[in-house]
């Protein structure tokens, strides 16, 4: 049913003039709408019966496009249809522009000049929106499933205005792959977008798709994979120079570690580099925990972050404990290494008491209350000791530590420390004891 459309398009209506200024935005949208349907306009002015055969065919195609009727056709007919659309360069009709309504002062938005309209969009919106016109074009293209270089141009343009449009990114990556475009060139471009849009996460998903394909292309070429890993890590370093705690970048990095098997290729060293710059960078601590305690070489598959894992070698546990201890000495009031220590002990099935002496370095409490001043260098050490003592059954000591926290060393959390004291009285356990119960409960019921 689709006409053969390979004749020279001599009867095609004149191409639209180069972009011109319109007095109002409504005029501009209307013009864009009309430009997108030249054959319908031609038919309306000449009358369908006066069209040439080729014009008639093009007109029919344009109408099929506009109504979406082609969607119900068999695949082969659809292919034929699209070939004609392309060879005849039939534009994809835009939806008819709607009334733009009135602004807050009651003025008709359609009467703004295009420039005023642009300003209006910026001003009136808390979040800068997309230009509807450009999105309109893209939608039409998406509806037609066109994957052409102009899609790349258009999506680049839209992304420069709003990088958070999910479907735009998805369509861009589909088009890139369909066109067999250069992925390294795309990565170059994406690097710049990412540096300009620190908070955007769609970029990182896009990057995953790109890298996934690069990895497929490279196959088992170890050298090339290593190079890829290196260049990705180098780019992340650039991102971390801007913000060393960027959640999306860290998230991508974990994905990359798994994808490229980077467990033992400089990840721990890189965390240490970042921690030397800022020992309070909790993101780097969290990444270290991931790299150490999810490494498939020795970790039990599926072991949760909060669970004991019998697979971790002692020397690794010792190494991690020593590393965190050093960081605690460097900045005793930094909670990150204290949390890390608790995590390591849990993974290794070791008791808090095993580090009682270490935590005691930061806390000197006279044996009897009222006999001299205590000396506390870290509230986290005191908290650690409270749990260690509760674990040993030394409730009195534990209670005193919790009281000191609430009354003196961590007063903003007084209610919490009081709650812990009440827990201690009611079941004799500190956090350590209670945690134990929960884990047992969870195991019993097979979760």
């Amino acid at each position, binding site marked *: 049913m689709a006409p053969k459309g390979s004749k020279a398009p001599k009867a095609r209506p004149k191409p639209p003039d180069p972009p011109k200024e319109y007095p109002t935005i409504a005029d501009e949208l209307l013009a864009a709408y009309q430009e997108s349907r030249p054959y319908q306009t031609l038919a309306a002015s000449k009358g369908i019966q006066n069209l040439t055969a080729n014009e008639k065919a093009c007109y029919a195609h344009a109408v099929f496009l506009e109504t979406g009727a082609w969607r119900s056709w068999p695949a082969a007919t659809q292919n034929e249809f699209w070939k004609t659309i392309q060879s005849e360069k039939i534009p994809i009709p835009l939806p008819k522009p*709607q009334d733009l309504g009135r602004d807050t002062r009651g003025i008709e938005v359609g009467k703004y000049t295009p420039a005023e309209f642009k300003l209006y969009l910026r001003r009136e919106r808390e979040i800068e929106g997309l230009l509807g016109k450009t999105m309109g074009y893209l939608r039409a293209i998406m509806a037609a499933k066109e994957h052409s270089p102009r899609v790349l141009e258009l999506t680049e343009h839209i992304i420069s205005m709003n990088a958070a449009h999910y479907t735009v990114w998805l369509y861009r990556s589909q088009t890139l792959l369909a066109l067999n475009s250069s992925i390294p060139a795309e990565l170059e471009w994406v690097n710049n977008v990412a540096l300009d849009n620190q908070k955007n996460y769609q970029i990182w998903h896009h990057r995953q798709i790109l890298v996934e394909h690069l990895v497929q292309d490279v196959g088992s070429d170890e050298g090339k994979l290593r190079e890829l890993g290196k260049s990705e890590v180098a780019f992340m370093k650039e991102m971390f120079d801007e913000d060393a705690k960027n*959640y999306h970048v860290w998230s991508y990095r974990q994905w990359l570690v798994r994808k490229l098997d980077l467990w033992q290729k400089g990840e721990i060293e890189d965390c240490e580099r970042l921690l030397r710059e800022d020992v309070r960078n909790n*993101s780097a601590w969290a990444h270290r925990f991931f790299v150490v305690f999810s490494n498939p070489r020795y970790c039990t598959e599926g072991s*949760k*972050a*909060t*669970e004991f894992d019998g697979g971790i070698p002692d020397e690794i546990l010792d190494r991690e404990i020593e590393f965190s201890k050093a960081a605690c000495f460097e900045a005793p009031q930094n909670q990150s290494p204290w949390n890390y220590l608790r995590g390591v002990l849990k993974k290794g099935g070791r008791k808090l008491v095993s580090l009682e002496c270490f935590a005691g370095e930061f806390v000197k409490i006279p044996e009897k209350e009222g006999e001299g001043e205590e000396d506390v260098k870290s509230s986290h050490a005191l908290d650690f000791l409270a749990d260690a003592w509760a674990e040993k059954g030394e409730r009195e000591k534990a209670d005193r530590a919790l009281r000191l926290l609430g009354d003196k060393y961590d007063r903003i*959390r007084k209610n919490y420390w009081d*709650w812990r004291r009440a827990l201690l009285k009611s079941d004799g356990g500190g956090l350590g004891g209670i*945690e134990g119960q929960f884990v047992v409960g969870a195991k019993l019921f097979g979760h």
Partner: protein
Amino acid sequence: MAVSEPSLNAALHIKYWQRCLKSVLPNGYTSMDSSRVTLGFFILSALDLLGAGADTFSEDKRTNIKEWILKCQHPNGGFCGSPNHRYPDASYVDVGHGKQVMDPANLPATYFAIMGLSFVGSFDKIRRNDCLRWLKTMQREDGSFGEIVTQDGVIEGGRDMRTCMVAAAIRWMLRGDEIFTEEEKKGDIDVDRLVSHVRAGQTYDGGIGESSQHEAHAGYTYCAIASLKLVNRLPESKESEPNSGLTNVPSTIRWLVSRQMGYTAEDDEEEEEDPAPQVKLQGVYTDEAAPENEQFVGFNGRCNKRADTCYAFWVGAALNMLCHEKNTLLNVSPIRRFLFEQTQHRIGGFGKCPGDPPDIYHSYLALAALATMNEPGLKPLDAALCISIQQKKKLELLRKAASDWTGE
């Protein structure tokens, strides 16, 4: 030192939100960005918390908003982020199982749209069955939810706790938590898998992250706990429960209360010169003579980050759900002072950090945080749904009223 207690200037905030209502909730076409529905929800709910909600609007205004939200509804179920995400209906050919050709419905937008409708109208125009069917197609094998499902049936979008929470809330709003018939159970999402996905997100330090291998984050922690609450699988804080959705509740509580930080204005100034965040310990390195700052207490979203208004909600509400003691773990006065005297803006609304201009997101979450702490002048809040308890009850009535929907 006696510190005077600030109080809520409701009139000022109502004015702020009415201005937002005017400039954000639009007529027809001007709404082009995908977050419009989200902003709409914040505005309607803020006005409700302040007692100036949609029930005080003119009938015309309500109808207007309702129709605008309904324009975002996708023909195959769910909602898109804004009306002009919709191409003419003919473009939406269902290629089977709710998979959509273009501009697919989007999970967060669907949540905000249904919430929004609950403020201005009824649920009878929601294509409930389509929506629930579509919701089910958004769940992955591992229990997580994506944001959209493409025409090829690929579930796209992150697999973090935010979409879990949104999915659990949509399910709650449209089906409720009553016992389901066998037929309904078949069409339901897999709750056990959802719970085990959330469980798997707890990190070594007790919080919850994008995954357990990632850094704990207060936003994800809230979403995880709210998801569990909405499917009735939240454990009590004091005893272990077999079906609990968290592996270790006390350590989550410890992580949450650790998000509080004493705030002093110098912290910010220092931060400008030196990007390393400064955490001040109350009393440790200072002599007794040095003043402790307990006057203002803010919250950060991750360990060693700076305080930000919205985390007062994410953290406060998470604790509210975990502890039946109703926030007694937090000392409310310095938190109120931080919000009222540091991040509240002269023209109404709240900014992200002290000195920042107000924005809709932080303004809403500041009100919500205050409402969880039973601020006089605000309606009490339901922490899991992040709307007033009164609105939650209204939502239940709307759900019941529309229970004999044919669906579509």
